[in-house]
C-alpha cells in the first residue's frame, strides 16, 4: 500500500488540487456569486500601487506635455510680435478650440448636460489574462458603483461594470468576446445585439438579411438590456453584408476612439430618444458663405445666435478697430487697446446701421481716446 501511495503520490496530489479548484469553481458558478473576500483582498492590495503608478505616469506625461506647450507658447509669442493682431485672434480661437478639445472638460460638460446621473472615473489598470478586454477603474462601492452599471464617454458606450470592490471596479469593455448589449440603428431603426470580437471592432448580431441597413449608419443603445439607457451612441457600421442566415454588420465603437483614460459610470440612467440628425462629431457639409453685398476688404463676421465664438471675437476686434480708427495690417501707432468698453451689441438685423454709425463716431473721435462707457457689458468673447 505504501509502495502504491509512493508511486502515485504526484498524480494523487495533482488530482486533489484540481478537484479542490473544480469545487471552488462549481460553488461560484452555482451560487452565481464570487469569492468576494479573496478578490477584495487582491484588488485592495493592488489598487494603491496602481494609483501610485498611474499618478507617477500622469505627472510625468503632464510635465513633458507642459514643457512642449510652453515651447509652443514661446514660438507663438514671437509670431505675435510680428503680426500681433492676427495672432491674437488666432490665439483666442485656438484657446477656445483647445479648451473644447480638452478631454476632462468635455467629460465634465457632458456630465452636466447628460440627463443621466454619472460619476467620473480614471482607468488605472488592466485585469490579468492574455488579451483581456477588462480594465480596472478607480471608483468602487464606496463611490456608489454597483455591478451591472453602464460605463460611457461623451463619444459613446465603453462597457459595463462586472465587479465592484470598495476602491475599484472591473469594467468589461465592448470589445470583449463576452460583451453583449441591445442596439438600434439610427435611420432604419433595426434592432440587434452588439457583441465584442476580442479586437478593435464589434459586430451587431441577430439582424435578418431582409433588413435594410447601409454602411455608415449609426447605432445607439436600445435600452433593452436594462444596463445601458436608450439613446447612447455606440458606433457606426463600417461593413454591412448579407450572411448565411443573418446580416454581418461590423461596427467601429465610438466610445474608445479618443483613448481610454477617463470614463463616466452611469449610476442613474435616463432613457433618451434616438437623435434624428447625425452626431455633431460627424463631418458636416457647410455651404459657402454668400458674396458680400458691399465691397469691403474682409467678409463681415457672422453675428446673431448662429455665430461661433470666433465670429463674435472677429466682430469685436473689427469694432475696436473702427472705434480707434485703425486699419489692421498697416502697423504703426502701437497696438490696439483690446480692453476698451464697446457700445452695446446691435440688435439682430441692425448690424449694418450700427456699424456705420460706429464708424462715423470713430471718425469724429481721435485715436487713443476712450469711448463713452456703455451701460451694457461688452460681449463675452470666448467664454464657453
Amino acid at each position, binding site marked *: 500500500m505504501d509502495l502504491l501511495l509512493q508511486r502515485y503520490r504526484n498524480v494523487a496530489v*495533482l488530482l486533489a488540487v*484540481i478537484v479542490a*479548484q473544480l469545487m471552488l469553481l462549481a460553488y*461560484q458558478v452555482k451560487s452565481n456569486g464570487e469569492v468576494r473576500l479573496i*478578490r477584495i483582498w487582491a484588488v485592495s492590495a*493592488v489598487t494603491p500601487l496602481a494609483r501610485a503608478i498611474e499618478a507617477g505616469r500622469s505627472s510625468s506625461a503632464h510635465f513633458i506635455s507642459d514643457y512642449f506647450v510652453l515651447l509652443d507658447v514661446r514660438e507663438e509669442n514671437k509670431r505675435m510680435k510680428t503680426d500681433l493682431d492676427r495672432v491674437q485672434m488666432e490665439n483666442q480661437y485656438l484657446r477656445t478650440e483647445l479648451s473644447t478639445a480638452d478631454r476632462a472638460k468635455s467629460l465634465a460638460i457632458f456630465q452636466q448636460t447628460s440627463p443621466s446621473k454619472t460619476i467620473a472615473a480614471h482607468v488605472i489598470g488592466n485585469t490579468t489574462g492574455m488579451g*483581456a478586454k477588462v480594465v480596472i477603474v478607480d471608483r468602487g462601492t464606496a463611490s456608489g458603483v454597483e455591478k451591472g452599471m453602464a460605463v460611457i464617454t461623451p463619444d459613446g458606450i465603453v462597457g459595463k461594470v462586472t465587479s465592484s470592490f470598495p476602491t475599484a471596479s472591473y469594467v468589461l469593455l465592448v470589445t470583449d468576446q463576452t460583451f453583449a448589449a441591445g442596439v438600434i440603428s439610427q435611420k432604419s431603426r433595426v434592432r440587434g445585439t452588439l457583441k465584442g470580437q476580442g479586437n478593435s471592432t464589434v459586430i451587431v448580431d441577430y439582424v435578418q438579411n431582409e433588413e435594410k441597413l447601409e454602411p455608415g449608419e449609426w447605432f445607439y443603445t436600445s435600452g433593452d438590456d436594462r444596463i445601458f439607457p436608450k439613446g447612447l451612441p455606440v458606433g457606426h457600421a463600417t461593413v454591412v453584408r448579407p450572411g448565411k442566415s443573418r446580416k454581418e454588420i461590423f461596427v467601429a465603437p465610438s466610445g474608445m476612439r479618443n483613448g481610454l483614460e477617463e470614463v463616466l459610470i452611469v449610476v442613474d440612467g435616463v432613457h433618451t430618444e434616438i437623435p434624428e440628425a447625425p452626431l455633431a462629431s460627424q463631418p458636416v457639409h457647410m455651404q459657402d458663405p454668400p458674396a458680400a453685398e458691399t465691397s469691403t476688404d474682409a467678409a463681415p463676421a457672422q453675428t446673431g445666435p448662429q455665430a461661433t465664438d470666433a465670429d463674435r471675437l472677429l466682430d469685436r476686434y473689427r469694432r475696436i478697430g473702427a472705434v480707434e480708427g485703425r486699419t489692421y495690417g498697416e502697423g504703426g501707432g502701437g497696438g490696439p487697446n483690446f480692453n476698451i468698453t464697446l457700445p452695446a451689441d446691435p440688435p439682430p438685423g441692425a448690424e449694418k446701421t450700427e456699424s456705420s454709425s460706429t464708424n462715423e463716431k470713430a471718425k469724429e473721435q481721435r485715436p487713443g481716446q476712450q469711448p463713452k462707457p456703455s451701460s451694457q457689458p461688452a460681449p463675452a468673447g470666448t467664454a464657453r
Partner: protein
Amino acid sequence: MGDLHSGLREDFIGSPSKIGVYRYHSATIAAVALAAILFQVYVPRFLAQLSYLELPLLITVYFSLMRRSPMAGVAYGSLIGLAQDSLSHNPLGMFGIVKTLVGYFAASASLRFNVENHGIRLVISLFFCFFHQFLYWVLSRALLGEELDLNIATTIVVSVLNALVAVPLFRVLDKLKVPV
C-alpha cells in the same frame, strides 16, 4: 557513431546522472511571480501589444522545469494561477486549474529533457503556451458555458511570440538559481 549519438542524446534529452536540480529562495519565487502578474495588470495599459504576453505562464513553466518536481510544479502552477484569477474577471480557479496542469506536465517533462538547452526551452515554452490557451478555451466552454472563439492561427502566433520571449527570460531567471 555511438559516441555521437549518445552526445546528442545528452544534449537534448539529458542523462540522468547529469540532471541538475535547482532551488530558489521562496522570496525570489514570490517576487518574480508577483512581478509577472503586476506586469499583466499595468503594462498592457500603456503598450496594448504586450497584452498577449503571458508572463505568469512563462514563470510557472520555468520554475516547474528547473525544480524538476511534479509536486512543486503543481504548487507553483496552482498558486500563480489562483493569484492571477484573483485579479481577473473570471471565477477563481480557471487559471488555477490550467496552470496547475501546466506546472505538473512541465515538471514531468523536465525529468526527460535537458531543460538548460535553449532549443528545448523554446519548444517546451511553445508547446505549453498553446496547451495553456487551448485548455483555457476548453474549460471556458465546458465549465462556464462561454462561447469563446479559438483562432488557431492567432493562438499559434501568440504562442511563438511567448516562446521567443521565454528563452531570454529564462536566461535572466537562471541567474537567480541556487544549485543544490
